[in-house]
């Protein structure tokens, strides 16, 4: 089967500083890839570049997503094509409720992909169903996006958005950081419930814990802007025991 995502010799950075120094990565439909690495390895840069954050620039290489040139697409076009980034630090938007935020996002995606508009009742039904998935109570949807949320609430809100937008490729950027065991389980259950043979995910993490709950097909180790090792869960075990220092490909 064709690759869903194909990254070739990707060099990218911010403000003239090169952070990714030649990444090659292929992901097939249905696969979950974990990317592990120490701080500063380039994990968040990779997720930012995939989602199209404007302050990062790609200096070399290519990314193809479902046959399209991803780098030529705006962030919103990438979202419409099925890319979703769960932010490591979700952004607060005072004055905009979760309901209105998701209404705009879902409506824009359906319009762009030629799907019929949801009626208000259909939208609310969908929202209720997806909120149950991440164990959120109804009144939560009235709150302003991420304003005054605890760490766990922010991450559950990310997974709620992911569930509502039904992406083909989900990128979870350190979704586990700062979560207690219960919140981590809610997030993992939410992600697992959305798994399907067509859908892929990239899970970026420092720790093996999340990978015990969401089993990846492939584990990569990113160090100094390069993938230095690729394998199965045994790599995560090695990192757990020996740290990142011992992994040099």
């Amino acid at each position, binding site marked *: 089967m064709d690759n869903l995502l194909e990254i070739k010799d990707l060099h990218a950075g911010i403000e003239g500083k090169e952070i990714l120094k030649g990444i090659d990565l292929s992901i097939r439909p249905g696969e979950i890839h974990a990317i592990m690495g120490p701080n500063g390895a380039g994990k968040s840069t990779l997720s930012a570049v995939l*989602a199209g954050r404007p302050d990062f620039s790609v200096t070399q290489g290519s990314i193809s997503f479902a046959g399209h040139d991803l780098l030529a697409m705006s962030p919103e076009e990438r979202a419409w094509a099925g890319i979703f*980034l769960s932010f490591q630090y979700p952004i607060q938007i005072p004055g905009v409720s979760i309901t209105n*935020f998701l209404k705009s996002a879902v409506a824009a995606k359906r319009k762009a992909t030629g799907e019929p508009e949801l009626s208000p009742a259909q939208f609310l039904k969908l929202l209720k169903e997806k909120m149950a998935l991440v164990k959120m109570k109804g009144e939560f949807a009235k709150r302003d996006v991420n304003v005054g949320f605890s760490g766990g609430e922010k991450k559950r809100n990310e997974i709620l958005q992911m569930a509502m937008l039904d992406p083909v490729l989900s990128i979870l950027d350190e979704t586990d950081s700062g979560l207690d065991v219960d919140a981590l389980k809610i997030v993992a259950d939410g992600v697992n419930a959305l798994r399907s043979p067509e859908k892929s995910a990239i899970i970026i993490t420092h720790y093996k814990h999340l990978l015990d709950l969401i089993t990846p097909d492939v584990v990569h180790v990113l160090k100094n802007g390069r993938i230095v090792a690729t394998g199965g869960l045994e790599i995560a075990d090695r990192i757990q025991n020996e740290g990142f220092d011992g992994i040099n490909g």
Partner: protein
Amino acid sequence: MDRVYRIGIDEVPKRLNLNDCEQLRLIFIVMPGVSADIPFEINIEKEGVELEILGLYLSPHSERVKFNITVRHMVGGSHSRQLFKGIVGGSARAEFDGLVYVAKGAQKTEAFQENHSLLLDNGATVETHPQLEIYADDVKCSHGATSGYLNPDELFYMRSRGIPEAEARKLQMISFVSPVISHLNETMQNQIISRL
């Protein structure tokens, strides 16, 4: 009690003396295309008054808007809170002069004043001159002012969810003005949102 003044449409008193009411909220609205000087003074002459003054100026083109607001606490034990927010673009210029005066002996006064502007273009100008003149010693008073551009992190967050850039900018503006417009009726809220 709420009083809404649409600048250029409603007559605005230049001066009010507050001596009989307990609670008052005044809202000044300057819509796009309106240039105006808005001098306004209010004297609080009664204890236990809760006064709120809100202002919104939408000046996206070449408007000139100038607020000159004076709040005088002549007696103690009253609270005033001012919040002025504006979106300024093109070559427009907005100015906010705000004086809070606390008379001698007006103890236990609380007076807060804030002015925040969102700049849409490099050619837009905002100027803010907050002033506190305090002759009592047991008071809580503060002022704050900010001006800045739309937050790029917010914008990217929304776009990454598939909200088109133009709509994301509009949502940011709605978010910015919401502390003021949330006190208006729905018709007025919609009128304002449609002009952002």
